[in-house]
């Protein structure tokens, strides 16, 4: 049985500490890939990022994306943590980690999870600050990244 950890939370997290459980039973794990998405300060113009989400659907949709990743690649563990609420520059926003026997599948699954989370998980970013302001627009490149997985 693969290990799945999935949380949506307001609190900051420690990427390092969060991925440790994935290696707790690590006899067969040869590769651990982790991705941390962080809040940039946008050249000092961003005071904070506010992330609105759809409670319930956010967890369900991330769960569907994780199930899809398990169906595509033989993995031992997947972790997804996504924050909501107010986030300051330098703080983590999202953590995705994948563990498996080989690096190719761990890398592919981590990138797939991020591409799908970006375009399918119901979260919306609003910028607070000087120059920056308002809702962040979805990027065409994110749609392109997600569509490459077919």
């Amino acid at each position, binding site marked *: 049985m693969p290990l799945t950890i999935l949380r949506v939370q307001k609190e900051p997290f420690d990427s390092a500490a969060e991925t440790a459980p994935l290696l707790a039973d690590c006899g067969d794990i040869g590769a651990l890939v982790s991705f941390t*998405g962080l809040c940039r300060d946008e050249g000092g113009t961003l005071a904070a990022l506010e*992330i*609105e*989400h*759809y409670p*319930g*659907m956010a967890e*369900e*949709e991330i769960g569907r994306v994780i199930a899809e990743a398990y169906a595509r690649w033989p993995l031992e563990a997947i972790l997804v943590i*996504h924050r909501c609420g107010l986030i300051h520059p330098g703080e983590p*926003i*999202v953590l995705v980690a994948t563990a498996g026997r080989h690096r190719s599948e761990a890398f592919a699954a981590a990138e797939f999870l*991020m591409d799908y*989370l*970006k*375009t*399918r*998980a*119901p*979260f*919306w*970013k*609003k910028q607070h600050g000087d120059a920056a302001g308002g*809702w*962040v*627009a*979805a990027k065409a490149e*994110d749609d392109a990244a997600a569509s490459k997985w077919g």
Partner: protein
Amino acid sequence: MKALYFAWVRERVGLGEEEIAPPREVKSVADLVIWLKSRGDNYAAAFANEKTVRVALDRSHAKPGALIAGANEIAFFPPMTGG
């Protein structure tokens, strides 16, 4: 059924959720958007550019052609920008 609005759709409509009772002839998501737009300027503004508004039926992404019969919850929101 319960209607939910998020991000700038929520801000334009002016509320986050409400109970709606569309008439029987409103069958698809697209029908429901037309009906909502007829309810006031705030809805008309929220759905001015219908193609940029995404929909979820009972917490799963849905297309404009999807039928709403039986759904308990419908949500409208801009393209996602999480991650």
